């Protein structure tokens, strides 16, 4: 039998937010209106269909005093109190008046551990005592979680009160949860009952593996985005004798649009991977409205500066040139390295502005078409990658308890968090392969994916 944990408490104290954050599920209905949750809802941690533990979101106490009054009418010793609670459930199972209490007490009486949630940003109130007393009557292992819905802090008075009813009192903010906090709460839950320690510890390991899977899938999506967009070629057939500017403009616009769509598709994939399917985003950044993927501003925030780009190009060229020197055992007087650096640097310098040249192809074969791509711009991969990592980072670290609009605003310091010179050099090697438009082998993609996963791990974990 796997451990079950019922998250219970007063209405509107963040039970659903806590469940949402712990279950990484953004479909939990969270509302200001009391009574939004009317049925218990199960959130099992499953591995290949096998449940390791189950979290239960329950309705809040509505008529705690009435329930307690009913219980206290029965004068029984402490070891028989749980039977009275069971009797209450049996008697009022079909009474709509006690629907919420029945819903929350039933899983507890079936063996679920109790996680009692209060809001530590509001003062302690005596009306909570009836609820805590009922939970004590159930005789089930329990802990209290102090949630902080607002800024103010009354946690000390809460701790004093809760300490009298629960053997463990922890603070947890579902809006700002991270992996360490998440694991720490799971570890506390494991302590509630000795036989739960092993399955919950196993769940923690799986939770870590799950996060690894999510990182891997995000890195894979980003890799695919980079490889596909850098090698992408847009073609436009035309029948007229001469190519007009409008045709060139059209093919260029189609090309840009395709790249944008690729980015949007990748972002959706990443949101799905992190269970943020229902996320609403601030669109300013993502629609490139005024801050276009191709604008100079975005280049400076997400991409490399011209100086960085030249250094990267020169270094990459020098490495290639050094290979030639090595081949000739140094008889080239290291000219290979020098020439490579010059060529690489110059390529980067001139490749800053242009996206890709629009070429007219197929003239001799009779079927003429305009072609743009693969990407010539040396900075584009860094812009696209910077944006993708920025997005993935925000999605991965966003709490599932949040229901507000995610504002992905640019931050010029973000680049420093993940991109250093060594990584830039490593990335450039792959960007060159992607830009060539040649077939990219699965192994190469895997190597790039490992680099991206490393970046995400550094940022997220």
């Amino acid at each position: 039998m796997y451990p079950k944990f019922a998250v219970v408490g007063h209405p509107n104290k963040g039970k659903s937010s806590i469940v949402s954050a712990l279950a990484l599920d953004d479909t939990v209905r969270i509302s200001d209106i009391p009574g939004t949750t009317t049925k218990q809802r199960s959130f099992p941690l499953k591995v290949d269909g096998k449940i390791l533990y189950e979290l239960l979101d329950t309705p809040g106490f509505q008529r705690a005093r009435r329930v307690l009054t009913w219980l206290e009418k029965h004068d029984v010793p402490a070891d028989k109190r749980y039977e009275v609670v069971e009797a209450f459930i049996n008697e009022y199972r079909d009474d709509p008046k006690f629907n919420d209490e029945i819903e929350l007490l039933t899983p507890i009486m079936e063996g679920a551990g109790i996680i009692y949630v209060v809001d530590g940003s509001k003062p302690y109130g005596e009306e909570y005592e009836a609820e805590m007393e009922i939970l004590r009557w159930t005789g089930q292992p329990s802990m209290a979680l102090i949630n902080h819905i607002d800024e103010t802090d009354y946690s000390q008075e809460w701790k004093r009160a809760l300490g009298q009813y629960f053997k463990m009192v922890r603070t947890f903010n579902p809006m700002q949860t991270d992996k360490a906090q998440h694991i720490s709460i799971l570890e506390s839950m494991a302590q509630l009952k000795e036989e739960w320690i092993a399955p919950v510890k196993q769940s923690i390991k799986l939770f870590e593996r799950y996060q690894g899977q999510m990182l891997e899938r995000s890195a894979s999506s980003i890799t695919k985005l980079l490889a596909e967009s850098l090698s992408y070629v847009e073609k436009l057939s035309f029948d007229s004798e001469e190519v007009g500017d409008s045709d060139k403009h059209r093919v260029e616009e189609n090309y840009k649009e395709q790249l944008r769509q690729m980015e949007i598709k990748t972002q959706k994939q990443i949101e799905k991977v992190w269970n943020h399917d229902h996320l609403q985003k601030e669109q300013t950044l993502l629609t490139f409205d005024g801050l276009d993927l191709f604008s100079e501003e975005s280049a400076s925030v997400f991409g490399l500066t011209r100086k960085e780009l030249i250094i990267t190009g020169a270094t990459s060229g020098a490495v290639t040139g050094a290979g030639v020197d090595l081949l000739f055992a140094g008889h080239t007087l290291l000219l290979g390295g020098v020439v490579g650096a010059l060529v690489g640097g110059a390529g980067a310098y001139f490749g800053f502005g242009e996206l890709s040249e629009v070429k007219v192809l197929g003239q001799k074969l009779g079927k003429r078409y305009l072609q743009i791509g693969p990407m010539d711009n040396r900075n584009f991969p860094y812009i696209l990658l910077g944006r993708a990592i920025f997005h993935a980072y925000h999605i991965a670290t966003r709490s599932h308890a949040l229901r507000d609009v995610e504002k992905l605003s640019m931050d010029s310091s973000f680049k420093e968090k993940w991109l250093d010179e060594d990584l830039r050099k490593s990335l450039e090697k792959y960007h060159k392969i992607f830009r060539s438009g040649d077939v990219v082998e699965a192994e190469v993609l895997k190597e790039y994916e490992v680099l991206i996963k490393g970046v995400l791990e550094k940022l997220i974990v």
Partner: protein
Amino acid sequence: MNLKSYLNLYQLLEVDTSSKEERRVFGLFDESLKNRPIEQLLKWLGIHDSKLKKPLLSEIFSSYLYGITLGVVLIAFFIGIFSGITLLSYNGHAPVNVVYFIAMVIFLPLVTMTLTLFSMLKAHKTQSVLVHLSPAYWLEKLLSFLPSKVRKNVDSIKINPLLTNWIVIKRSQFVALFFSLGLLLSLLAIVATKDIAFAWSTTLDITPEAFHHFLEALSIPWKTWLPSAVPSLELIEQSQYFRLGDRLSEEMVLHASKLGEWWKFLAMSTLFYAIILRFMMYLLSLFGLRSALKKSFLTLDGVQTLLSDMNEPIISTHAAQRSNDNNINTQGNLQIIEKLDNSYDIVQGWAMSKEGLEVLNDSMKVITPMVVDVGGTNTLREDTEIIHKSKGEVLLYVKAWEPPTMDFMDYLEELLVAEIDKVVIVPVGTVEESYKAADRFINIWIKKLSTVESEKLWLKR
């Protein structure tokens, strides 16, 4: 693993709607395949190929490829025969110059095989010039003459360029092999049916000794086990032909029967250089194609996701069902007041202490003869007694941040049917907020109290 299975998988991935769970079940069914992705994919294909729409894309493509290959091979074979006949034709004036034939069966194959080796090395290029030089590639352009429906079907297949290049390379070897077989067949047929005087002639200043060394070098592969197929110095000397005088030398006429000995060398040269070496190139291309197929299998769109779905455990933490929307009906006309009166017949506080209520009255500048606390730690009986004592206008303070529970609503309902004229609910904030309630909390109270239909009920905003 072959081209057909590649195309079937390509088609299957486009139409496949299998769930993650189905894929994982498949992965778990035979875990030994976990590290053998190709075998795993082929097994998956075997189980799901019934989902593919008939006629299969692979069948269309294979029949097209088979047709084209057969046509090109036949053409090459006949060209080989005619080339052989042309090269070996005796015009009655001069003997047949073996140099032409040597060039055709040794040098041409060696040059084309070298180019093939280069094209093999560059097969990963999307637009490999060397591959495009192949006759097989250009004959494939015959495709544009196919009926539009067939062309559309074939055009819709997006094959990995690496694979396309290897297909072209392999077929080029096959075509060249049949061309060489045509040459060999024509040589054998002509030798058997005609009496041909072979000779060698060149404008270059080459001595018979030098030519002998050269031919001996060419004959190394068969020299030891078939010495009769190596031209002797004597034969070379006797069969050197000078065009001056436009007639055969006496020496040649004297040894006319010996001149025919050349055919063995020509046949072995054709067999070794044009057929055996070409066959080895063909085997190499088969090997390359197999490796390209393997790589292409793993880079097919959707394959990596499929493999990871099969081999990675499904870890889920979210709820199995979506939450039910529980919309509270907030229709109703709650009466709102903006300002409190100076005095009330009774002031009550829900879950508040008497001392706290006194301070609150003072702060609100409210005078009252009676202050009582209700709810909280009161028993239900105590609350009922308070309701019975309540007369006239009742001011009921509530903690704004605590949403109205059904316990409160029960009390309010009872109060509203008692002998009172009016109940004014006042949601108040914390002491730190100077009792000023936040709008978001007041709105929750308004929504809930709107469900109560009573003219006696008022709310102070």
